[in-house]
């Protein structure tokens, strides 16, 4: 017989109503006050409370990269971060990527253009995460070779297997930047 989950070290606690609090997030340059419970992840805050549904939920456990966003210009998995922990940080989602690239005038980010040119997707579900991750990769500046790009993009799974074109798209932009 399976032991009851309630026994042992697990605490028994009566159900209680969620305690909502005010959390101010700065997303894509805009400050928004949200009324959310402390256990709301950054991913859920973006999707469910701010209607920024570009960021996707794939696994909700850090295993796929679909939820990748930039926090203070660094790529992270928004499913494993609490929104409340990101108060005061600068958050950038796929909705805020266009027009942010300093070398380019308004319009699509070079990576977005390159993904279109290289047809770097099929269903597109992983694409926002791939692009945010690639922006992070460029900010980090550690990818020198094709093999580096593959390794440093390994945190983004593409179920459609568009990897070859994704790597090409990123490589094009890196080469352009270096030229």
């Amino acid at each position, binding site marked *: 017989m*399976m032991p009851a989950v309630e026994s*042992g070290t*697990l605490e028994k606690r009566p159900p209680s109503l*969620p305690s909502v609090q005010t959390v101010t997030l700065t997303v894509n340059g805009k400050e928004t006050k949200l009324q959310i419970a402390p256990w709301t992840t950054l991913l859920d805050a973006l999707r469910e409370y701010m209607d920024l549904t570009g960021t996707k939920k794939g696994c909700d456990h850090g295993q796929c990269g679909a939820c990748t966003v930039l926090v203070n210009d660094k*790529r992270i998995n928004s499913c494993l971060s*609490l929104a409340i922990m990101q108060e005061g940080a600068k958050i950038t989602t796929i909705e805020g990527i266009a027009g942010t690239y300093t070398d380019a005038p308004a319009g699509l980010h070079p990576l977005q253009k390159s993904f279109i040119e290289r047809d770097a997707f099929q269903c597109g579900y992983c694409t926002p995460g791939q692009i945010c991750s690639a922006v*992070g990769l460029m900010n980090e500046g*550690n990818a020198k070779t094709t093999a580096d790009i593959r390794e440093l993009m390994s*945190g983004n799974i593409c179920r459609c297997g568009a990897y070859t074109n994704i790597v090409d798209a990123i490589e094009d932009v890196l080469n352009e930047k270096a030229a």
Partner: protein
Amino acid sequence: MNSFTYTRTEDVDTAVLERSSEQTSKFIAGGTNLIDLMKENVERPTRLIDITHLPLTSITDTVNGGLRLGALVTNADTAYNEQVIQRYPLLSQTILAGASPQLRNMATDGGNLLQRTRCYYFYDTATPCNKREPGSGCSAINGFNRIHAILGTAPDNSGLGQPQCIATHPSDMCVALAALEAEVRVTGINGERTIPFADFHRLPGNTPNIDNTLEPGELITSIDLPAKGFPKYYAYLKLRDRASYAFALVSVAVALEMDGDTITTARIALGGVAHKPWRKPEAEAKLIGKPATKENFQAAAELLLAGAQGFGHNTFKIELAKRAIVRALGQAAKLEPTA
């Protein structure tokens, strides 16, 4: 997830005090392990104390020529730190073999030490697990145990009896820290202390619910690397089911000092095989004063795996670990390429 309250603290003393005033509270750093486990109801803290704003985010020189990694430095910032790359390349390489760039940007050095096992049953609250619920049994011993331990599983010193837990510690970083003989600095309500890395994690014995020797409520403030960094002869070999973004089935960190062809210092630490990074002084001693040859490496590998026990799906790890040790030693001694 269970309901909890959240506080953010900016200084170490307040963090430690808050933590000790509520037994069921927890510190949260990168959150990459804790939030994952909270979503599965494996961890159910009543309060989270956010320590990411504590002033423990820098890498500095120590008085005895080593390097101090603040507990809240991210894994990425550690791996790409110029001092770490130059003086402790084994550590840099090992960190970069783990997780993904996104996770390494969030994960902290202190949190990495305290990440919990990836045993499937530990994550599944519908199954018995002595680590999650002491006394409920171990589902892995007669279940799927491909990723599980082959060393150090005995319930007590007699080495007899049924193991209580065959989980492995999943960290890569810790394997390098074991080889480098780092020290862990901690602060609790009773003050500060330093724990040698070999004593930080523990074997499961009869209390597999306890992963390490940290007292409840103690905060890791830094990980101190000794002066000796083995920048010349080192290797980290990680074997896994795919080339990247997967935990190790077996991993080997090697750090050597050589005089010509002769080995003068040897450190070998294994990951993925036990409840803690696995070292064996006899195996390392066996290499001292010896030339770097495959035969000598093989002899050390046999000693390191002495007493290893498989549980079915994971029995392949015994031979895999031996071969990995021989190859990693060859790479460290520059007898074979690292790719």
